[in-house]
């Protein structure tokens, strides 16, 4: 007896066909229709190949050649969780909410009930977002009322151990009403020896004068794939602050789309990618200045060891209406091994005439003069290297004001560093 093995887009469409009656909200006509529409979009586009311009540097064959089991498995009970970093934490295991392990602030409306997202869910025209819409089971709905400070919330996604590859597609929807404030620490983790695909999508709507700080620790398991996207809009006077630490996973794509829709909106996108042997990480940002007087700042730092590959693609679009735009983008990579590779593609597209927009990119090795200076002062080669790598990352990390976030990031950086077999000074 032979069994047909489904891989690639085919495999996921096949799963959708098989699961559609059992997916959460299957009986809600609007959601069933949306999923069907997403399936059509995904069927038409498939997984992007390197011939698609936006995917030129990231080859998804590792993902498309794998087979994934259905995600609607019984959720593990004996999952070991990392220590909570904040008072409130929401835990998702294999893409499903574990309310028994979670707590959230009463101030915010938190729900993962699918029925409540009607009218709030959008379908961006991107294949990875379509894949998510087709198959998502759970996620956060954070609806922060006007003028409310919802504090800090940790959102942990953890994959359980499994002999067979699994896939899950978290869908988070965040809305901050006028003047609201929220900080999210998003942590993504998984076991080292399990192959899984995490395909999260965030929809973020920052209202007038509202402020959303979104710090992300991507520490997926060593064999994991993460193909994630964020779609954010920021209204007048609002701020979206994103910091992403990409340290885990085997193949990771982190896409951030932000549209500044109202006068004086601000967006910060900072990040660090720490890559070791065999890892591929791609940060792709798209900043759309659609209103006048907005500011955007991007600082990305990538450190590469072993045979690893980093990608940064960043596009800043300044529409004609977006006069007095202040845009800045810096992307720097430090190659610690001759086998590592970094590809950068910054892009500016400007249609307004009164703008201040700049970008820069550097790729380099550790500075020999700096290394010698430190070693001549008695500091060992390994410790000197570690000091200089931390110094390199400093600029991307220093923008983080929140102590909890800073601490969590510092610990993550140290953990990565130790895995590279280097001492921490």
């Amino acid at each position: 007896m032979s069994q047909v093995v489904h891989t690639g887009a085919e495999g996921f469409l096949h799963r959708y066909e098989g699961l559609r009656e059992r997916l959460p909200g299957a009986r809600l006509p609007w959601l069933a229709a949306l999923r069907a529409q997403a399936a059509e979009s995904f069927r038409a586009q498939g997984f992007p190949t390197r011939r698609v311009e936006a995917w030129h540097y990231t080859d998804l064959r590792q993902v498309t050649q794998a087979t994934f089991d259905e995600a609607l498995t019984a959720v593990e009970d004996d999952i070991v969780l990392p220590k909570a970093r904040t008072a409130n934490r929401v835990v998702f295991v294999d893409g499903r909410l574990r309310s028994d392990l979670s707590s959230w602030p009463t101030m915010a409306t938190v729900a993962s009930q699918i029925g409540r997202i009607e009218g709030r869910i959008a379908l961006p025209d991107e294949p990875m977002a379509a894949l998510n819409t087709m198959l998502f089971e759970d996620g956060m709905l954070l609806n922060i009322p006007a003028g409310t400070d919802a504090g800090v919330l940790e959102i942990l996604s953890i994959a359980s151990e499994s002999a067979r590859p699994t896939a899950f597609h978290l869908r988070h929807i965040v809305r901050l009403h006028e003047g609201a404030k929220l900080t999210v620490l998003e942590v993504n983790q998984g076991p080292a020896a399990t192959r899984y695909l995490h395909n999260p999508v965030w929809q973020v709507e920052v209202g007038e004068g509202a402020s959303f700080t979104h710090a992300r620790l991507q520490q997926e398991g060593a064999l994991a794939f993460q193909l994630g996207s964020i779609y954010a809009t920021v209204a007048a006077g609002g701020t979206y602050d994103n910091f992403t630490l990409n340290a885990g996973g085997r193949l990771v794509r982190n896409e951030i789309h932000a549209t500044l829709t109202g006068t004086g909106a601000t967006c910060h996108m900072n990040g660090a990618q720490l890559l070791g042997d065999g890892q591929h990480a791609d940060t792709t940002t798209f900043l759309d200045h659609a209103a006048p007087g907005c500011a955007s700042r991007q600082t990305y730092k990538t450190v590469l060891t072993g045979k690893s590959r980093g990608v940064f693609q960043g596009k800043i679009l300044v529409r004609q209406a977006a006069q007095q735009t202040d845009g800045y983008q810096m992307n720097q990579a430090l190659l610690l091994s001759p086998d590592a590779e970094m590809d950068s593609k910054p892009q500016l597209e400007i249609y307004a005439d009164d703008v201040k927009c700049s970008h820069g990119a550097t790729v380099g090795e550790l500075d020999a003069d700096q290394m010698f200076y430190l070693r001549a002062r008695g500091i060992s080669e390994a410790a000197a290297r570690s000091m200089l790598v931390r110094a390199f990352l400093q600029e991307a990390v220093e923008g983080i004001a929140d102590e909890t976030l800073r601490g969590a990031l510092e610990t993550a950086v140290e953990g990565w560093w130790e895995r590279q077999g280097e001492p921490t000074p």
Partner: protein
Amino acid sequence: MLKIEGLTATVDGKEILKGIDLEVPTGEVHAIMGPNGSGKSTLSYVLAGRDGYEVTGGTATFDGVDLLGKAPEERAALGVFLAFQYPVELPGVGNANFLRTALNAVRRGRGESELDAMQFLKVARARMKELSMPEDMLKRGVNVGFSGGEKKRNEVLQMALLAPKLAILDETDSGLDIDALKVAADGVNALRGPAFTALVITHYQRLLTYIVPDRVHVLMGGRIVRSGGKELALELEASGYGAPQAA
């Protein structure tokens, strides 16, 4: 004692040191003078162990221990200190963190206990006061945005903290104002004693009125071409280097 015999070295395949012979007995301070490009900094880098400076012949020992085969940090642990002609900027590395890491590395090498942040600050503040350095320099990135003179002072501070057995000062006086020059000289003189040896590279006799050397050597074309007492510096100041004299 620092003992250098027949030392030859190349940089990028070009021979710069062409057979240096030099002895500095323990407890003495010797000055090295010589025209631009004669190899003074090259000699100091070779003694400190910089990559890219290839030793092609000869020996250099300190207290009988071979220096040339050792990593820079091992030499530092033996008590060798180089004050750089051009101190390096380290953006993102805090000066306090740098100084404490260096001090503790050297203390470990000497078999002494490490200093915690509080103990370190106490020691560092005391030294900085002696060197009239403002305390906020501890908070800044190492040498980042420091003026030329401030960088040199930071070198002297490092020397004062690390208390080396062999200090090589490569034009530490260049770029210092008159007061700072005295302070830097005081820093060296404070370390002077039977267990402290120094090689002071300078272009100016003035420094040597504050740090009175036991001997003065002239380095030209990659060789020590003349040696004499402290009065040699005065003579050179008056008449220049001229043609190398027969040794």
